[in-house]
């Protein structure tokens, strides 16, 4: 069934459209700082490197647009698959060959990974693009490259093992994308309109982010995950609640649905 899911995803035009949008958002900042455009001062006073110029650090136009559409990138890829199967009756064909529990598990895993991948793709591409423009100079706190001050997310790791740090940040983006995609999938067990299902993660993220930003300040979800802001217990809390909560909701309600 996993192979079937992958084939189905790669044949979706919307998936490739999202990849294209992500690629454009990732490449545009690279083109803007291409070495021919940069001056020698960029290297002399504040060495340009992929660690410094990476989208989430060097926040520019495209990163703000990326943040704005991030929930839609995550959900549009595959979050409506369950509603689509249910509405079309295709789910009946599947559950005659595999158990429903297995179907639900694989669907959740594929959707989670796909949501995360579509979100992470522009960031990886941007980092690779920056590597073509700048030498990979290691971060130095005393050279003025204060990207991650004390109190932010693991500053020591950023200066001692920057590659690991980037990978960890990418992993957090991946998990956030997976959770947003899973919110859509979980809602598809109660809402059968697949287009509403696609929009729900966007609305949920907007509402929750605005609420946390207004009333909880340092626990703002965009501040914790999308910006280079302070780190606290909000990160693991949101990840655990988001992942387990959406999985339980989807799995329990989905399993109770009468399929045949």
């Amino acid at each position: 069934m996993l192979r079937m899911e992958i084939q189905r995803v790669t044949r979706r035009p919307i998936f490739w459209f999202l990849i294209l949008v992500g690629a454009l958002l990732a490449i545009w900042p690279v083109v803007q700082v291409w070495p021919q455009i940069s001056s020698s001062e960029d290297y002399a006073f504040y060495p340009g490197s992929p660690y410094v110029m990476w989208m989430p650090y060097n926040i520019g136009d495209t990163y703000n647009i990326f943040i704005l559409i991030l929930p839609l990138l995550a959900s549009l890829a595959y979050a409506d698959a369950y509603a689509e199967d249910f509405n079309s009756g295709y789910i009946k064909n599947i559950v005659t060959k595999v158990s429903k529990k297995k179907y639900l598990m694989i669907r959740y895993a594929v959707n989670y990974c796909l949501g995360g991948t579509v979100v992470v793709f522009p960031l990886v591409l941007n980092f690779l693009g920056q590597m073509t423009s700048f030498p990979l100079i290691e971060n130095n706190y005393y050279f003025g490259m204060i990207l991650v001050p004390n109190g932010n997310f693991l500053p020591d790791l950023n200066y001692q093992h920057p590659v690991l740090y980037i990978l960890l940040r990418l992993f957090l983006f991946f998990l956030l994308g997976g959770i947003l995609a899973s919110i859509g999938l979980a809602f598809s067990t109660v809402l059968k309109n697949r287009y509403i299902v696609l929009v729900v993660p966007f609305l949920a993220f907007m509402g929750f982010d605005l609420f946390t930003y207004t009333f909880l300040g340092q626990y703002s979800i965009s501040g914790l995950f999308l910006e280079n802001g302070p780190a606290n217990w909000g990160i693991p809390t949101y990840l655990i609640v988001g992942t387990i909560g959406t999985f339980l909701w989807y799995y329990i309600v989905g399993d109770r649905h009468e399929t045949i």
Partner: protein
Amino acid sequence: MVPSSGIILLVIDMRPSRLFRISVGALFSLRNVWLGGGIYCAFILTCLMALDKQGPGPRGLFDLIADLYGLHGSTNQLMFVSVGIPMIVITMTQLMKFKDRGSFLTKMKSRFQIFHLYVIAAIVYSIVFTVLILLFSWAVGGLIAGFGNTWLRADGSVSWLIHNPQRFQSVLPHLATYKVVAALFVTKFLGFLMIAFLTLFLKCWIKNDGLILIVLVILAGIEMFGPFPISFFITPAVLVLENWINPISILFHCAYLFIVSLALYGITGMIYERRDFLS
């Protein structure tokens, strides 16, 4: 009557008043959208006003509704991105999904009537949505910051930002409560109308409603954060301090929104005249 698409249409008498009734009836029949959307909008607008209350300088009722910087507040850019665009896209696409069915289409006299059903719905929805947002903002904003018009006061935010008593006196006549409310109503209404017409236009080409939303949000994002210093989408519907100092600019904004809406109406109408409802 056998049109080019091959659909056999039952010609029935469809006076404009009846078309209006059908359109409005269809719009308000989307109860789940109204209910869910209403709760979501109330939550977001309250958060936006509470966020604006934490902003710099004196904060009065109209600051919470139409912050002078143009980003926060319940009728500014963040409102359009988080409330205006999603709600209009959801409502219009759900209405079209419901009414584009064959059983309904066969009762309409022509494609012209089908299109105008949506146009009437877009206009009515824009008016109702604007009124509801302004009323809710007035009620909640009043509870948070008081119901007086602090922009008229010397310790209000307009005076605080202008930093010039003489200039503030010359701006005062433009800040009368009824003028502010009228300007807000007209700009928001035209902004929502343009988004609704743009949704109708995009729906002719894009089947996936989520894709329509992402296109509109990207457009808003390009305008808000992009490298081009051009106001072409939601910014003309947002009023900042310069607009209140120079009210003629509000007229230009309204004229722009009206012309764009009119152009979208014409183009989408032409597309509808050739639309094949069978595919």
